[in-house]
């Protein structure tokens, strides 16, 4: 078939296109992944016993806002990166820097005020060895869904798109993990939560060029 015939054929297939496809696709797949990740948490680990009271405290919400900010950065970057030639706005990088900066400030103040003997304990908590790994494990269903959604769209820069999908998955997974994890020290969150979420982004970046290729 020659190219002119192909064009005529394609034109026969013209139907109105709905707007908002990217957002709809990413939102539905991510929501499904989030449900799967929640179920995985409930099947695997107990909720923190003081969840009811913790929800009235600041440190629970600080953790929630911090992890959801990472997810937000991933999502805001993934939207343009799922389309051909999409560029990520510098504001997204700004949001990322703001979240990390605020948490670093809180961690510094907290450590400053703490008893010198307790500083290492504030940083390591009781679960530093498992925290990041569990966030990565809980991110698996989310990562599958965000990568599947991105693959079904048309990313042209596969590594950044994979990293954004990973960061979205990691941020939400960390928010889910916070329902179990009782740690509340800013230094702990800054170090181990960030490590888990960034590891998810790294895995996404590694997988991107392999699994996001579309035709």
């Amino acid at each position, binding site marked *: 078939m020659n190219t002119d*015939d*192909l064009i005529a054929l394609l034109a026969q297939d013209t139907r109105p296109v709905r707007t908002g496809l990217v957002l709809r696709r990413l939102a539905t797949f991510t929501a499904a992944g989030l449900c799967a990740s929640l179920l995985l948490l409930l099947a695997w680990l107990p909720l923190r016993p003081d969840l009811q009271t913790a929800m009235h405290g600041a440190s629970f919400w600080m953790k929630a806002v911090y992890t959801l900010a990472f997810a937000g950065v991933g999502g805001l970057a993934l939207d343009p990166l799922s389309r051909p030639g999409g560029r990520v706005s510098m504001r997204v990088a700004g949001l990322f820097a703001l979240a990390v900066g605020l948490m670093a400030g809180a961690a510094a103040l907290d450590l400053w005020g703490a008893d010198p003997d307790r500083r290492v304990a504030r940083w390591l908590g009781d679960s530093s060895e498992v925290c990041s790994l569990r966030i990565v494990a809980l991110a698996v269903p989310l990562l599958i869904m965000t990568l599947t959604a991105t693959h079904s769209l048309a990313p042209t820069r596969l590594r950044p798109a994979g990293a954004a999908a990973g960061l979205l998955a990691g941020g939400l997974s960390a928010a889910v993990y916070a329902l179990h994890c009782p740690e509340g020290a800013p230094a702990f969150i800054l170090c181990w939560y960030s490590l888990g979420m960034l590891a998810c982004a790294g895995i996404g970046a590694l997988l991107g060029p392999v699994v996001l290729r579309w035709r």
Partner: protein
Amino acid sequence: MLAGLGGDAAAHARLLAALAPRLRAYFARRMGADPGAAEDLVQETLLAIHLKRGLYDRTQPLMPWVLAIARYKLVDAWRRSGRRRMESLDDGAELVAEETADATMARRDLGVLLTRLPRRQQALLRDVRIEGLSMAEAAERHGLSVAAVKVTLHRSLKALQAMVDRGRSPSGEEVEP
């Protein structure tokens, strides 16, 4: 582009027809030695522009979007051709005759691929495309609703793309649909 997104088939055809020569120039410059392969890429890119047009952000300029798809297809083709070159070394590859470029010279002849579609889709494509029936006439002939004809047509195009993807086209074979 915007009118095409709204469902204006004539505008959509004009857009694709206007993009084709630009894409041909783009790929010809980068695939110099192989005009047939360049035309394949023109067709693949047009198909991708068509099937992915729902992802076009209406607030952004069009050409960067088109170029991003073209560049992606080009890199993809280089990747694949690297692999194919390796395979053909094993086969004891035959020499390829000289080719000149024009719109009829696509080596991966989509017409050949068309013959692999399910019979009903083939018949529909032939009637709509070759015999030039309108959607309504084709619908009547096949006892389908116009909507069903459109859906079938769309599925056929997707299937066609999947076949291009799997690279099942035999090169050198020349079959007219």
